[in-house]
Every structure is written in C-alpha cells, then in structure tokens.
C-alpha cells in the first residue's frame, strides 16, 4: 500500500518535472553564456552617450547600460559582460558568426534588415530620428516653426534630402545651405550662418557639446524621420530572444511602476501592486519561465536601474549631453516608450 503510494508520488513528481523541463526550449546561447560566465556584447566603437570608453577604459553609455542590465538578469552580476567594439561594416557578420551574443549598437530597425539579414530586433531602447538644433533665442518649438529659416547641411547627405522633402511637402520656405562635410556645416551653424543644423537626435546631442556655448541651443524633440534602435539577436534560439526582449521591457516597466534602484528593496518587500511583485520575483516565477532566477529583474533594477535612470545617467540631464526625453519618454507621459504588461 505505502509502496504503491510512494511509487505513484514518484511518477507524479517525475512527470511534473518533465513537464516543466519541456516548457523550457533549449537555448544554446544562454548555456554558452552561463558556461563562459559572461555576456559578449557587440557595441559601437565610440558614440557619445551611447557607447564609449571613459578615461579609465570603462565602457559607458545607454547601449552599454543595456548590456550590463542583461548581465545582471542572466548572471546576477552587471559586471559580467565583455564588450566587443564593432565598426559599421563588421556589426552584422560579427553577430551572425556567433562572435557576440547580441548587438546593442545604435542600429536602426528596418524591414529589410529584419527580413534578409537573419537578425531580429528585440524592442526599442532609443527612438532616434532626424531633428534640428536651433538657438534658444529663435523660440522654435518644432520643425514647423522653421518657416523662413536657413538650415546648414552636408551636401548630398540623407539628412539634406529628408529635410528638403519635409519642408517642400509642407510648403515651408526654408533655405538649405550646403556644405561639403558635416563638420563644416555644424561649424557654420555655430558661427551663425544658419538658424538650424540637422542630424539625428543622438548625434545632435553629441555635437551640441562641441558648440561654443552649448546651453544656448536646444534640440527640437519632434523628429521628422523615424529610426528606432534596439538590441539585435540572431535568428533561432527563441528563449535567448525572449530574455533579451523582456529585460528591456522590464526596465521600461520598472519606470512605469516607479521602481528605481533606490527603492527596489522596499518595493520588493512591501509593494502591494502585483505587477511590481511579479516583476521583482516576489510573486510568480517569471524568471524561472525563461530559465533564469526569479530575482532577474530585481538584480537589473538594483545594479543598473530602470530605463529612465539609465537614460538620465548616460544621455539625459545627468550627463554632459543633456538630452531631453522627447519620444523616449513613457507613453503615459507623451512619449513612445511602451512595454506589454508583466502578467
């Protein structure tokens, strides 16, 4: 009798563990990361605010922060990540050939890249887009206010075409002044030869620092083009893609829910919001469902912070770049930043 009962329990337990094992699809990338003890993250060779090495040789920036967050989620330690700087020519092959586990490298998400390169984009960590930098004194709030103004651009650049198309479509009389190189164009803008200079939001933030009096200029937050950027993974290995996607979502959700690196311990211990409790692993087993520990997002928030903290520290007001959130603000506050719920 007891023996049969024991046997039955044993069978039940075995089938239960089998079921939970079956839920986890194999993930060679995750296995390799765990065996290696670090994440291999492909980053930009040097882009102010996004990825660069500081005086001490430490990699810093918004993209670098994401890699650190992933390391905190997967390995419990934000320091367990190694960076491979990649040039624009080698970024895709280096990911395709498996030399890095992912790219967090300011790469614009496009249909053709997604469809033909064998790569998947796992969400958006920066809404990039072409916009304008103008002097504060002009009082321009958006590109539409630039009627009658002049814009310095590099001749033949994508930016030149975008800008002239945009103004033409809206019947705005804007003088486009051409220069041979971007550097010449921005120097001419700084010297007062034009009212505006145009480039991507991120690039403008980096260039504003170089101007004579950076504080006199503002970057218009409403862009005229759409170049969203985010972490990239190879096709295949869905579980790894899941992790990469939901660590980013988790950082955004934490900001939505008001979880910061400062209050994460208190939130985990006493929050009554069940989404916060699930996010931080106080309730449910979301981490285990991906093959991670349940405090995966707790580690991310504790060690790296939520998306907003990361943004302010690297490109935002807490950094030299002083970029406004703009489109990279939460959707509830007028931006585009969004995450599906942790349910």
């Amino acid at each position: 009798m007891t023996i049969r009962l024991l046997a039955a329990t044993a069978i039940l337990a075995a089938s239960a563990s089998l079921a939970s094992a079956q839920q986890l699809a194999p993930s060679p990338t995750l296995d390799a990361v765990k065996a290696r003890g670090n994440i291999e993250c492909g980053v930009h060779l040097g882009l102010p605010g996004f990825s660069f090495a500081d005086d001490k040789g430490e990699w810093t920036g918004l993209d670098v922060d994401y890699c650190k967050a992933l390391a905190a989620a997967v390995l419990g330690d934000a320091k367990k990540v190694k960076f491979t700087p990649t040039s624009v020519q080698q970024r895709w092959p280096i990911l395709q050939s498996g030399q890095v586990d992912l790219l967090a490298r300011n790469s614009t998400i496009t249909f053709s890249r997604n469809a033909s390169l064998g790569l998947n984009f796992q969400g958006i960590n920066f809404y990039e887009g072409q916009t304008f930098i103008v002097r504060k004194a002009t009082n321009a709030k958006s590109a539409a206010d630039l009627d009658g103004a002049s814009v310095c651009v590099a001749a033949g650049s994508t930016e030149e075409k975008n800008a002239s198309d945009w103004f033409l479509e809206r019947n705005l009389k804007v003088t486009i002044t051409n220069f041979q190189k971007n550097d010449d164009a921005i120097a001419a803008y700084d010297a007062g030869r034009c009212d505006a200079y145009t480039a991507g939001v991120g690039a403008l933030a980096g260039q504003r620092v170089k101007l004579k009096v950076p504080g006199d200029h503002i970057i218009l937050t409403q862009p005229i083009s759409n170049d969203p950027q985010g972490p990239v993974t190879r096709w295949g290995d869905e579980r790894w893609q899941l992790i990469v996607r939901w660590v980013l979502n988790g950082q955004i959700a934490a900001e939505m829910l008001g979880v910061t690196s400062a209050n994460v311990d208190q939130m985990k211990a006493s929050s009554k919001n069940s989404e916060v409790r699930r996010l931080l692993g106080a309730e449910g087993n979301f981490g285990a469902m991906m093959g991670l520990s349940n405090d995966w997002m707790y580690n991310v928030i504790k060690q790296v912070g939520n998306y907003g903290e990361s943004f302010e520290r690297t490109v935002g007001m807490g950094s030299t770049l002083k970029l406004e959130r703009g489109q990279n603000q939460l959707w509830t506050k007028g931006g585009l930043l969004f995450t599906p719920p942790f349910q």
Partner: protein
Amino acid sequence: MGIAGLSLWRRRLFGTPATGVVTILIGLALVWLAVPMVRWALVNATWSGTTRADCAPGGACWVFVKARFGQFMYGFYPPDQRWRADLAGLLFVFGAAATVFAPPRLRLKIGIAALVILPPLGIWLLAGGFGLRPIETREWGGLMLTLFISVYASLIAIPLGILFALGRQSELRVIRLISVLFIEFWRGVPIIAVIFLASLLLPLILPGGIGIDRLARAVIGLGLVIAAYMAEAVRGGLQALPPGQREAATALGLTYWKATGLIILPQALRISLPAMTNEFIALVKNTTLVLVVSILDLLGIAQASLADPAWVGMNMEAYVFSGSIYWLICFALSRWSRHLEMMGRRQHR
C-alpha cells in the same frame, strides 16, 4: 657652423636673384603656415588641468592627451600589468641592439637566438598564462598594439618574403609557379579586404566560430600581404647581383643553400634593405587599417576616445598627437635604414 658654412648656405639660398626670390617666398609661406600652428600647439595650448573645462579656447588642449595617455599607449591593458608590455618592448630593443652591435663573428648566432627566443617570450608576456595573469587581446591597444602588429607581421613577412623571392628565381618549375602565384595573389588584393576576410569571413567558414584569436587573424593576414611586397623587394636585390656570384660559388663546390646563405643573400639583402625598410614603414602605417575590424591601435584608440562626451571636439589634439607618434616611428626607421646602408657601403669598399 663656421664662416665657410655660412657662405655656402648664402650661395645656395641667394646665389642668383631668382633663387633669392624663391627662397624668400618659400620662407614666407613657411612662416605663414608655421606661426598659427605653433601658436595653436604651443603658445595658446593648455598643459595642466584635469578636465575639458581647464582648457583655454583657441589653443590645443593637451590635458586631453595627458588624461588619455595610458590608453593611447596601452589601450585597455590593465594598468597594474602594463610593465609586461614595457618589458616585452625593452627585450625586443635589447635583442635588436645586441644583434646590431655584436662583433661580426657572433652577430648571426645572436640574431638567430633573438629570433627564436623573443617572439614567443613577447607573446607570453603580453597574453599571460603560465604564471602570468591572462589578458585577452581585446584589452590590448594603442601604441603597444601598433608596434605588436608591425613587429609580428614583419616576423611573418620577412622570412616568407625571402623564401618566395628565392622561389621565384628557382629552376624548379613547380616552386617557381607556387611563388609567383603567392606573390601575385597577395600583392593584388587590397590589404583592407584581406583584414576583412580574415576577421569576418573566416569565422563564418570555419566550424566552431571563435577558433583563432581576432588579433592573430589580422596579424597573419597583414603578414601575408607584406610578405608578397617583401618578396618583390628582395627579388630586386637578387636580380641586381651578377650571375657570376652564384656560378663562382657553385664552382667552389657550395650547395644551393650554402651558396644562397653565404654568398647570395648577404649581398642581395644589403641591396634591398632600403626597399625592405620602405615596406616596413608602409606596414607600420598600414596597421591602422585594422581599425575597420575594431582592433584599437594607436589611431583607433585616439579616434574612439573622441566619443567620450567629456572630451568631444578634441579631434585636432587626437590626430596631431597620434600622427606625430607615427611620424616619429617612421622617421626613426628611415634614419636607421640610412645608417645601415652607410655601414653596408663602408664594408663593401
């Protein structure tokens, strides 16, 4: 400079009215170019301080170079281990000096000993293992990496180059064909393409992904290209030798290798030394091409540090500084080769 020297210069610079005018014009142009340069680089420059804010506008901000000096020299090599790079460099300088200044009888032996011992020793010191803390090549960078690539690529290129130059002159058809194919192939491919293939295509083709180190692939690729150039430089020397040299050596009963090693090569290499130095100088400058695969040599690290928001806009400083170091290296090399040539000519007499 005595009175005689002075009058010689006067004759050279102001010999005729026409040369006088040209001298004055060139002098003015030099002053016109040099004054703003000196003013920027020295007079208005800021030397002390720690941040960008300490720098006066209108002059060079050498504070930037000072803050980044360690990185410019060693890349991300851990600061407490940088003595290893210094030691490796010293050993190579010592090995070269010992070979050059050794008494002629011992020179060959010392040279060969240095060639056998130093390269593996250098790699051990830099990469670690066997008692030293291992340091991945991704942390290497700066001037140290530039020198590493130059030295190790030429360690591949010079012996291979000599072999293929001899092979091209060989009487055996197959060897001649192989040599010609090798030389023409590597000479015809752009270096940048070779570095790309070595760095990107190889891992896609090879099973197992990251089999060979990224830096090693780039060094081998560069070495093979330069080997082809070196082979052509050596061939020039070989062809300049009168055929009587080999005929005489053979008549004395020397085998092919003995005749080559004792009679032909010493003379041929002396003749081709200037051309080979040229190739080496080109190699030093070509190492900057590894930037396309994000290996951060001196130029690469200078460029990468421009991305630090704390230092953006330091383009001039970064390029002037790294450019001067490349110039210093290449100038020293060309002086050294001139010195060797002179020595060779003196021995020849």
